[in-house]
């Protein structure tokens, strides 16, 4: 009975006769080496690129499945921000009378709600994405980063669909005579949206990885998203007067605040918060790097604990 102290090979030869690869020996191209996990490792970008079709299919599945059995289908992507716009216009605009800096209220609220919706759906869906893909993760190998990335992309698709509502409202105001001057500032819009997307990807990826090990995340995320909305005044008001320095600082520390202002300014004119946009962009990249690194580190254990 050979209890494999010297592992026998399938050929029945003993290990001693083989010339095993020396440690550190270069492996042949097309070889995969599987070894115990290292502590920190950078994301394998070329592999992620090779799996881009899978990323596409996962995104496509998310979008397709989300509206498949709903009566209104993709209209939900438009209806939610539309209702939000109406509610905000009635309560904040008419009743509370918050300042919108001269911008028509529906237009003001809509330009705040849309990027926020993109951000919050992307983050909360990404946070649950890995846990929700348990069956996939325990049965097949693929770069796991594709899972949270795909949910963010699916949220981006929703954002584009909802964007058509904004287009309609803007055209409506233009016809009614409100001066919508499209200028070079329009170029800021895709930048702001991209930074929102990157921030959401970084945060969502980080939370997705945390959620695997700590299920607390599932309960914490919706709560903080709700708080986040109130902590992002750009969504529903334009601050007037002189707030204290502390409040100013807090608002600058919230990247979504500057991003929404930049998004709105790009579309409707007004001063672009360059400093805030820059801070947000740097923050997004840092967050993305941290999120991906942490995800990469714990990814090897997903299949064991998910």
């Amino acid at each position, binding site marked *: 009975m050979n209890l494999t*102290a010297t592992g026998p*090979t399938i050929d029945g030869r003993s290990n001693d006769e083989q010339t095993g690869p020396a440690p550190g020996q270069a492996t042949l191209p097309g070889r995969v*080496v*599987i070894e115990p996990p290292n502590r920190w490792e950078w994301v394998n970008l070329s592999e992620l690129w090779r799996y881009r079709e899978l990323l596409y299919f996962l995104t496509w599945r998310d979008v397709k499945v989300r509206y498949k059995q709903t009566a209104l289908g993709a209209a939900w992507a438009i209806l939610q921000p539309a209702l939000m716009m109406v509610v905000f216009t009635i309560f904040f605009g008419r009743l509370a009378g918050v300042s919108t800096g001269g911008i028509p209220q529906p237009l003001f609220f809509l330009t705040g709600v849309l990027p926020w919706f993109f951000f919050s759906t992307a983050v909360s869906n990404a946070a649950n994405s890995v846990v929700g893909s348990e069956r996939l993760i325990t049965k097949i190998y693929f770069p796991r980063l594709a899972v949270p990335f795909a949910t963010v992309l699916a949220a981006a698709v929703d954002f584009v669909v909802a964007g058509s509502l904004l287009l309609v409202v803007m055209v409506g105001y233009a016809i009614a005579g409100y001066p919508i001057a499209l200028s070079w500032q329009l170029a800021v819009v895709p930048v702001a949206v991209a930074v929102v997307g990157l921030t959401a990807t970084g945060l969502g990826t980080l939370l997705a990885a945390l959620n695997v090990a*700590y299920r607390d995340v599932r309960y914490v995320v919706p709560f903080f998203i709700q708080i986040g909305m109130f902590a992002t005044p750009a969504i529903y008001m334009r601050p007037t007067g002189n707030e204290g320095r502390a409040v100013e600082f807090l608002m600058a520390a919230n990247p979504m605040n500057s991003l929404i202002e930049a998004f709105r300014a790009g579309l409707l004119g007004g001063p672009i918060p360059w400093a805030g946009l820059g801070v947000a962009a740097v923050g997004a990249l840092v967050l993305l790097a941290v999120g991906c690194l942490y995800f990469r580190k714990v990814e090897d254990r997903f299949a064991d604990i998910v």
Partner: protein
Amino acid sequence: MTAAIRVDGLGKCYRVAQGGHRVRYRTLRESLVGAVSAPFRRTGSNGNRLDQADAFWALKDVSFEVQPGEVVGIIGRNGAGKSTLLKVLSRITKPTTGRVEIAGRVGSLLEVGTGFHPELTGRENVYLNGSILGMSHKEIDRKFDEMVAFAEVEKFLDLPVKRYSSGMYVRLAFAVAAHLEPEILIVDEVLAVGDAAFQDRCLEKMRQCASSGRTVLLVSHQMTSVRDLCDRALWLDRGSVRQAGDVRQVIDRYMTETAHQVTPGTWIDLTATPRIGDGHTVFRSARFYGAVDEEPPVPDGPLHLAVRIDSEAESVAGHLRVEFQLHDRYRTRLLTFNTCEARQPLCVRGGLTELTFRVDRLHLAPGRYGVNLMMGDATDLYDSVSEAFQLEVVASADGDADRWGLSSLVTRTVHYHATPVDATVRNRDAL
């Protein structure tokens, strides 16, 4: 020649909570407490003991090599580490120690229909599943018709798969996987799905795969398919390689060594036997005998099978299903007895219960048969002990059967009569 797969000193360790359950996940609080108490753990007598008890080695120092084009079967009991090995080789989980080198594109099939979404149509799922398995869009386009024809679901392609029958679902899922053309194919027990005709076609597909020079690694409990498909076998026992080599030799030794041959009538202790299941109710011991206690069963006579089961619950009413499965040395299942076929609801109270089955006529040829025990309800598997023991059927005392060299596995008592046919009738029929 470079090996297609080279495994060197592979080990995989899991943290196991006390009571034998795998650690699922921790709460943040536990982790924080753990981080704070970590510096003190060395000194605490409690901490050290826990660390030892927490480790479970699913694989331990496993080394082997597979040459390109070889078809290798991996056999072993439940919990021997077969699935863990496949998971490491397909990169789903990382090993704790050791190293694996793989040369070539790997396709792994640990489950049929991974990533199938019930809301999507058959067509959509083919693309989704294909891309998850690693096929490119173009590749799927090219093989699409072939896959659909193989699965025989042409008419239902645009229906969501949740409306499919389970047979259709499995056929479509297997069809996608079968058309994956990797250089190295890793398969886990997927042949155990679908009806007999479809299983045959799957086996045929596997055979094609094997004969086209691809390297195949296959886990199966069905020794017949392992013997038919594979050139070599690897026997895993409690996480280590017990034997590796020619498929027939390994299977023969595996079958003789894993068998607990016992004398009729004595109780076999099963408490230490490897098993799977949630442990809600467990098998404690089992025994068998023929017509009377301590007598072996004979082909024509009755068989008694008894188990003692132990339940944590207050009472398990009605739905408890206890099953015996008899199989031959190649794990071809011959007979199944269970409490559901008896159409008598089985009520069991908490604690120890003895349950005896009686089969009036066994109809099995003399020889050794393995017995699997399973128990559960409609949704959960409480306990399953594969190869719990082996029973031996001996030739009847009159020994008449031996004269013909009883060659079949199953014997049947038949009634017959002979009638003389007169010549005119015979001629008419011949015309």
